[in-house]
C-alpha cells in the first residue's frame, strides 16, 4: 500500500525478498503457529487522510471547554499559568523530541546538558543537594519518596498528612500495597497538618512523614515545627512542594527535609487534561546513590573537553534488575526540558515576581469574597489557593458559573465529607482583577 510514512516500493520489496531468499513477506511470518495467527482484518476505524483526520479531531477538541475560552479558577494540583512562547519553540526542535534516552553521550550532549541544567535549577529552588532528571509526575514521585524512605530506614510505617493532594495520597497507598507498607493518615486542623495528632503517631517504626508545602488547601505547612518531630525518631522528612511557590517561600531544604518532590507543571507545561506533566525528585547528598531514575553527571572526554553522561547507573533497572532502587525507565524528559526553558525565561527575577503575583491575586480574591460574606474556614497564610464555604452544593454553583464563562473551583466534598459545600479556589497570575471581580459577583449571586 502507499502511505506517506511507509517508503518501501514494490521494486524495493522484490529485491529485498530475493536477498532474504523468500517469495513473499508472508513467509517471514511462518514461525507464528496457525493456532495463534490473526487472519482477519482488525475491526478498527478505516484510515483517514491528513486533512480529514485533522478536521475530525479539531471537532473533538472543540467539544471541550478550554481555559483559553473560559476563565478558570480551578487548581487542585494543576494550574493555568503563563507559558512563555519560547517554550514550545524549543521543545519542538525535533533533535530533542525525536531522540530517546541519551545512551550514546557523544551524540546526546544537547539532551544531557539540558538535563544537567534542569537538575541544577531544581536543586536551587528546593534547597536540596541532588535532583534527578525527572519522574512521571508529582504523585508517583511522592510514592517513590515513600519507597526510598522505607528502603533506607528499613521501616514499614508511613505517616501521611490528609492535607496532601487526595490523588497523590491514592497513588501512595497503591504503591504501599505493593511493598506491604502501612500508611497512617494524619488529620488536619485549621487547614494544616494536626501536629498533636502527628506527635501521637510518631514512633521508632516510622519510615517517613509526608506533608505538602503549600498543602492541598493552599496553606503553608509549618515545616519548621514539623521537622523536629520527624527527626526525633530518625524518620525521613518528605515534602511535596509546588516549585513555583518556592520562588517566595523558604525552600524545604532549609528546614532539613530529606526528600523533596513535586510537579514542575507550573513551569511551562500546559494542563493537558492531567498529563503528561513532570515530577521532580530531590534529596540530601547522603541519599544520592539511592535516588530513583536517571541522573546526569559532568565529566571530561579523552581530550579534556567538558561533557555530560548518564551516571550512577548501578542504581537502575537495566543494570541491577530486581535489585534496582526503582523500576522507572522512560521518564518525562521533554517536559523537564519545557520546565527548564520556562524556569530560564522567568529566571531569578521572574520566578519571584510570578510567585508573588499569585499570592497577591489570591489574597485579593479571598478578601473580596470574605467581604461578600463567604466564610473562609482556614485562616493561615496561603499561596495561590484558598477555601470558601458555600450555601449550596459546589457542583450546582459551578453549573451557574459555567453559564457565565467561568470554570469554578474544586469541590472538596469529593474527598473530604466534612468539607461538603466547600470550594477550593485557585488564582494564578493570569487572572485579572476584572475576572476575579466577576467571580466574586457571580458567587455572591449564587450565595444570596
Amino acid at each position: 500500500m502507499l502511505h506517506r510514512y511507509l517508503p518501501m516500493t514494490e521494486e524495493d520489496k522484490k529485491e529485498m525478498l530475493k536477498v532474504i531468499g523468500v517469495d513473499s513477506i508472508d513467509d517471514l511470518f511462518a514461525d507464528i503457529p496457525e493456532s495463534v495467527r490473526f487472519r482477519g482484518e482488525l475491526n478498527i476505524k478505516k484510515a483517514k487522510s491528513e486533512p480529514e483526520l485533522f478536521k475530525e479531531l479539531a471537532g473533538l477538541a472543540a467539544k471541550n471547554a478550554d481555559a483559553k475560552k473560559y476563565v478558570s479558577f480551578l487548581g487542585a494540583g494543576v494550574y493555568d499559568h503563563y507559558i512563555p512562547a519560547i517554550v514550545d519553540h524549543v521543545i519542538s526542535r525535533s533533535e530533542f523530541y525525536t531522540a530517546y534516552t541519551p545512551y550514546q553521550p557523544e551524540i546526546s550532549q544537547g539532551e544531557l546538558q539540558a538535563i544537567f541544567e534542569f537538575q541544577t535549577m531544581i536543586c536551587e529552588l528546593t534547597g536540596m543537594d541532588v535532583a534527578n532528571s525527572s519522574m512521571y509526575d508529582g504523585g508517583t514521585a511522592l510514592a517513590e519518596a515513600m519507597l526510598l524512605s522505607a528502603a533506607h530506614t528499613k521501616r514499614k510505617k508511613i505517616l501521611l498528612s490528609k492535607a496532601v493532594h487526595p490523588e497523590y495520597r491514592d497513588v501512595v497507598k497503591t504503591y504501599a500495597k505493593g511493598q506491604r507498607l502501612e500508611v497512617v493518615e494524619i488529620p488536619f486542623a485549621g487547614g494544616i497538618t494536626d501536629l498533636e495528632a502527628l506527635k501521637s503517631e510518631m514512633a521508632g517504626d516510622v519510615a517517613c512523614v509526608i506533608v505538602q508545602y503549600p498543602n492541598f488547601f493552599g496553606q503553608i505547612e509549618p515545616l519548621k515545627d514539623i521537622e523536629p518531630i520527624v527527626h526525633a525518631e530518625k524518620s525521613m522528612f518528605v515534602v511535596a512542594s509546588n516549585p513555583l511557590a518556592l520562588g517566595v517561600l523558604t525552600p524545604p531544604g532549609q528546614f532539613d527535609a530529606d526528600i523533596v518532590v513535586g510537579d514542575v507543571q507550573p513551569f511551562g507545561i500546559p494542563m493537558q487534561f492531567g498529563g503528561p506533566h513532570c515530577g521532580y525528585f530531590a534529596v540530601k547528598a547522603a541519599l544520592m546513590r539511592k535516588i530513583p531514575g536517571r541522573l546526569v553527571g559532568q565529566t571530561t572526554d579523552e581530550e579534556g573537553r567538558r561533557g555530560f553522561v548518564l551516571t550512577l547507573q548501578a542504581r537502575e533497572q537495566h543494570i541491577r534488575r530486581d535489585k534496582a532502587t526503582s523500576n522507572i525507565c522512560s521518564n518525562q524528559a521533554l517536559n523537564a526540558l519545557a520546565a527548564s526553558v520556562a524556569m530560564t525565561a522567568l529566571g531569578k527575577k521572574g520566578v519571584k515576581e510570578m510567585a508573588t503575583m499569585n499570592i497577591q491575586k489570591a489574597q485579593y480574591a479571598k478578601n473580596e469574597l470574605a467581604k461578600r460574606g463567604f466564610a473562609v474556614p482556614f485562616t493561615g497564610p496561603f499561596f495561590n489557593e484558598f477555601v470558601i464555604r458555600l450555601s449550596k452544593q459546589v457542583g450546582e454553583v459551578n453549573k451557574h458559573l459555567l453559564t457565565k464563562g467561568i470554570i469554578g473551583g474544586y469541590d472538596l466534598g469529593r474527598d473530604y465529607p466534612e468539607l461538603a459545600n466547600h470550594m477550593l479556589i485557585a488564582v494564578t497570575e493570569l487572572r485579572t482583577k476584572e475576572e476575579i471581580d466577576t467571580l466574586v459577583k457571580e458567587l455572591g449571586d449564587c450565595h444570596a
Partner: protein
Amino acid sequence: MHKDQPLIFEISKPGRIGYSLPELDVPAVDIGEIVPADYIRMQEPELPEVSELDIMRHYTALSKRNHGVDSGFYPLGSCTMKYNPKINENVARLAGFVHIHPLQPEETVQGALELMYDLQEHLKEITGMDAVTLQPAAGAHGEWTGLMMIRAYHEANGDFQRTKVIVPDSAHGTNPASATVAGFDTVTVKSTEDGLVDLEDLKRVVGPDTAALMLTNPNTLGLFEENILEMANIVHEAGGKLYYDGANLNAVLSKARPGDMGFDVVHLNLHKTFTGPHGGGGPGSGPVGVKADLIPFLPKPVVEKGESGYYLDYDRPQSIGRVKPFYGNFGINVRAYTYIRSMGPDGLKAVTEYAVLNANYMMRRLAEYYDLPYDRHCKHEFVLSGKRQKKLGVRTLDIAKRLLDFGFHPPTVYFPLIVEECMMIEPTETESKETLDAFIDAMIQIAKEAEENPEIVQEAPHTTVVKRLDETTAARKPILRYQKQ
C-alpha cells in the same frame, strides 16, 4: 577543562530578563504581611538571567549536539525509533486538548473522554483484550500496574501464596524491577540454544507459588516464541497468569494478538509502536489491557460510555486504586490515537510487514560479516554478536562508537545479556531501502576496518562534538549540578 558549550548559568548576566508578565492589577500587598518571616525566602534561587534570544540560541546550540530520528537513522533495538508524524504534534496542541483541566466537570470534557474511550476500544481490538486502562505513564509503570492487578486477582481468590514472578533470562531489566516494586520475588527461566524459552526449565520453575510469567513476544532476540500456547497452558494449569510486555508489539500488529496467544495482561508502549514520540527519554504512555476476569481490578477511574455521554467510573470496589494522578499521559494518548487513525487496519498491517521485511533484509546482508547467533527468520529486530571482531581487539562498544562517525545512532548494545558482545538492531518500517543499505555499508566497512585497521574503530568516534567520556570518574566523584565558581 575546555568548555566548548557554555551552560545557561555561564551566560547569565544580572539585569537581563526573558519573560513578560502582566502588570499587577490588584493591591500590591507586602508579602511580609501575609507570610510569616520564617517562611519568606531570603536567598534567591540562582536561576539564569538571560534574554529571549540568549535562550533560543542556547537551546538551538544544544539541539545541534543531539541526534534524533529526524536527524538520521536510529536502529536502537527494542525502542522502535520510527518516524514521529507531524500531524500528531499539531493535534496534540489544539487548545481543546492542551488547555483543559483534569478536574473540570465531565460535561465540559466530553471530547477528551470520547477520544480516550475510542483509543481504549482500538487498543482492545489490536491486542485482543477485553478492557484497557490508559492510566500508566510508561512501559515500566504499566508492568507494575499489571502485576499489581494480578496480585489483587490472586488475593481476591484467597490465594496469598503466589509470591513469584517468572521472567526469561532475555527479559528487559524493567520486568524483574517491576516485579520487585509490586512485592514479588523474581525467578529466571532459561532460554534454549535456539533463543526461545526452555519449556523444560519453565515446567521446573512453575508451581503453586507462581503469580505470573512475564514475556515479550517476539522476545528480545527478535524471535517469535512458537511454543506460546504450550507455555500459556503450563502457567495457567499451575494457576498463574501470563503477562505480555508490549515493547515489541510492532512485530505482530494484525499478525498475532496477545489476547489470542493466551496472555491475560498486556502493556503497550504508545511512544514506541504508536509514535508517542520518545521525547529524549519520555514522556511515554503505557496502557494496560486485560482479559475479563481481571477487569474488576483495573485502576480507577475507568472511562465509560453511558446514555448521556462519557463519564469516569470511580465506583470500583475491587480496583487496585490509582496508579497516577488523573488519567494518564493524555497528550501522548492523543498522538497515538491520531497515528492509529492515520494508519487504519491496512496501514497497521503494512507497518508490521515492512518492519519485519526490513529487519530480515538487514540481518541477511550482515550475516556474512558478523556472527548471527540465531539463524532463522527474525521479526522486527535481530541480534548480532561481535565475537569475531572481539578476537581482533575490537569490542562491540567500539563498533557502536564508530557508527557515530557515519551519522548513525548505534543499535542497542550488550543486551540481551545472554548474547556475547551483543548488538540488537531494529530498523522499523519507516526507513527506506537506501537508508538501510547505507547503514549496512557502514557496518561492512567497520567489519573490514576491524581486520585491517582496528585503531580507527577502537579510537572512534572521530567526528562528534566530544570524544569518549570518562564515565568512571563521573560515577566516582559525581558532579550532578552546576556550582557558581
